[in-house]
């Protein structure tokens, strides 16, 4: 009960603080650009988070869903002249669902490393397709994506720059976090965890693991695609580099850095990585080494993530209080 009321109070305060943070930090273009990218990449990472943390499978194809959102948006807005971002949003989700359905059906019976291997291959093939296929802009990519326009009848909602894009990126992030929290409390979320931790028990309880895996996969893909949709508007052009390994490594780091199944873990981790890259950069190549090394070090030495580091401290505090509690307990009896 106590933790729930705490959540009700703390989460809105955190959200408001996060929303005004770019303004408090000077409100410069660089700050807003970093804030928008943090929100976008965190959304992208939440898509992978539920597959890795809840389902326990490593999908390496989530960059493809991210790219699917970006490319669907770019193609519709530059080739078909679609100006409403609601339409490109719907298309992004539809394309991601189609990709995820296809990949999901092919990999339905595959598990563990074979699943990861195939999803990695999907990402590499998608990269060669994007770089060579003229329909997708080839190596030049697609340029001239218009500004984000989510206007409704009687209400103008547009974003011409990162400062104006921030409220939309922030709102998307909040919605996605809410969806992930809902997922974890849903029947599907419980089934996913059970399939992950105890597949035999899951089967005995009448859960079909293959079905659960496919459903979670289908739920996760549009989340990463929505990030790609926003990213297309943020950058105003899309090319094959949205499929680069950077996004994959960033997503994986976001999932494991703070700790798995921590609701705010991916956004906190994304913020840490992006702040380092944007404000304390050592140059592109060294940043790559830093990001890769952080990912390795966390998994090798702190498998529970940064949250796991805090646990011994909490236990220390706890154990100091415990003897007294135990004493009062015996006295009461």
């Amino acid at each position, binding site marked *: 009960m106590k933790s729930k009321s705490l959540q009700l109070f703390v989460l809105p305060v955190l959200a408001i603080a996060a929303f005004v943070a770019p303004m408090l930090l000077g409100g410069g273009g660089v700050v807003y650009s970093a804030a928008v990218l943090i929100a976008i990449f965190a959304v992208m990472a939440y898509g992978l988070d539920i597959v*890795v943390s809840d389902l*326990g*499978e*490593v999908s*390496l194809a989530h960059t493809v869903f991210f790219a699917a959102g970006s490319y669907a948006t770019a193609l519709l807005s530059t080739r078909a002249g679609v100006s409403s971002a609601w339409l490109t949003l719907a298309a992004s989700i539809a394309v991601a669902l189609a990709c995820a359905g296809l990949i999901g059906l*092919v990999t339905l*019976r*595959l*598990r*563990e*490393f*074979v699943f*990861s*291997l*195939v999803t*990695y*291959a*999907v990402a*590499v*093939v998608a*990269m*060669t*397709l994007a770089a*060579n296929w003229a329909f997708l802009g080839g190596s030049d990519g697609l340029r001239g994506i218009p500004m984000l326009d989510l206007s409704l009848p009687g209400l103008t909602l547009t974003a011409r720059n990162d400062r104006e894009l921030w409220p939309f990126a922030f709102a998307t992030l909040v919605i996605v976090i809410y969806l992930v929290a809902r997922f974890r409390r849903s029947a599907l979320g419980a089934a996913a965890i059970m399939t992950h931790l105890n597949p035999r028990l899951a089967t005995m309880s009448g859960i079909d693991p293959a079905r659960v895996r496919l459903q979670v996969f289908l739920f996760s893909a549009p989340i990463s695609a929505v990030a790609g949709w926003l990213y297309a508007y943020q950058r105003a052009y899309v090319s094959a580099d949205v499929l680069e*390994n950077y996004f*994959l*490594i960033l997503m*994986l780091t976001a999932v*494991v850095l703070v700790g798995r199944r921590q609701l705010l873990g991916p956004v906190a981790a994304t913020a840490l990585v992006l702040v380092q890259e944007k404000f304390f950069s050592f140059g*592109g*190549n*060294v*940043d*790559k*080494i830093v*990001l*890769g*090394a952080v*990912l*390795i070090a966390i*998994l*090798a030495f702190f*498998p529970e993530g940064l949250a796991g580091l805090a646990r011994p401290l909490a236990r220390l505090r706890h154990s100091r209080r415990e003897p007294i509690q135990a004493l009062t307990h015996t006295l009461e009896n």
Partner: protein
Amino acid sequence: MTFLQQIINGIVLGHAYALVAIGWTLLLGVARLVNFGHGQMYMLGAFVSWWAVTKAGVPYGLALPMAMVIGGLFGLVMQRIMLKATFEQNLVSIMIMTLGFGYVLNGGAAMVFGSTGQILETALSTREITLGELWLTWQDAAIVVAAIAVFVSLKWILDASRVGRLVRMVAEDPKLAMLAGINVRWVYYGVFAFEGAAVAFAGGMVAPRTPILTSMGFDEVIMTFVVVVLGGIGSVKGSYVAGVALGLFTALFGALVSPAYTTAAAFLVLIAVLVLRPGGMSAGSAAGVH
């Protein structure tokens, strides 16, 4: 280009694929480990060979062992860091860590060797063998000979030597092997050092055929997946056959259909194999190395 010329290209390419994949075959068969940094280790081998030959003036014959030592050391470092996860068979962590190692190598190579493409020319790659209308370079011939030599000796070591017996025992049941007094840890180290050295050797051998780029490993690793899966996980002989078959397939596909989409075509082969024989691909059934 004649059909026969494509067959020759395919055979050379196939031996190159097999040579690149051999370390992974052993790694997967013995330790049930996957290495998503494999492609980047291949890139490292190619760059070290290039650097040794063109910058340090080392003869090509010495540059290859240098690349192998560096590749082997890198493999040892990887295994040292992943040892705990290896014993726990924590595949999720291992896969993500190897991706991280690949990414570190990518950044490191761009920093040390620069991010522009390079060409490695050796005494073998500039001379050609011509047979009527057909031709191949001496480097191509060397790749075929080296691949056959590596496969035959590995097969012999696994089947007939004491070390091979230990490795096979660890592959089949690491816990039982430990009870029997085998130092499983050293076998894992050895397998990973072999993986690093073998793929670096392959990088140094194959590098003269293609431009050397920091991104070259990204595509190459797909071919290794196909070889390992098609050949049957842990099978040395199967990998060789699968490598040559894949080489012939990609050479003909590249010549007859489209050279830009050979990776995509190889991927479709992978999917077809997985859908046709899904039972043989699970981690549990990767029993042993042979």
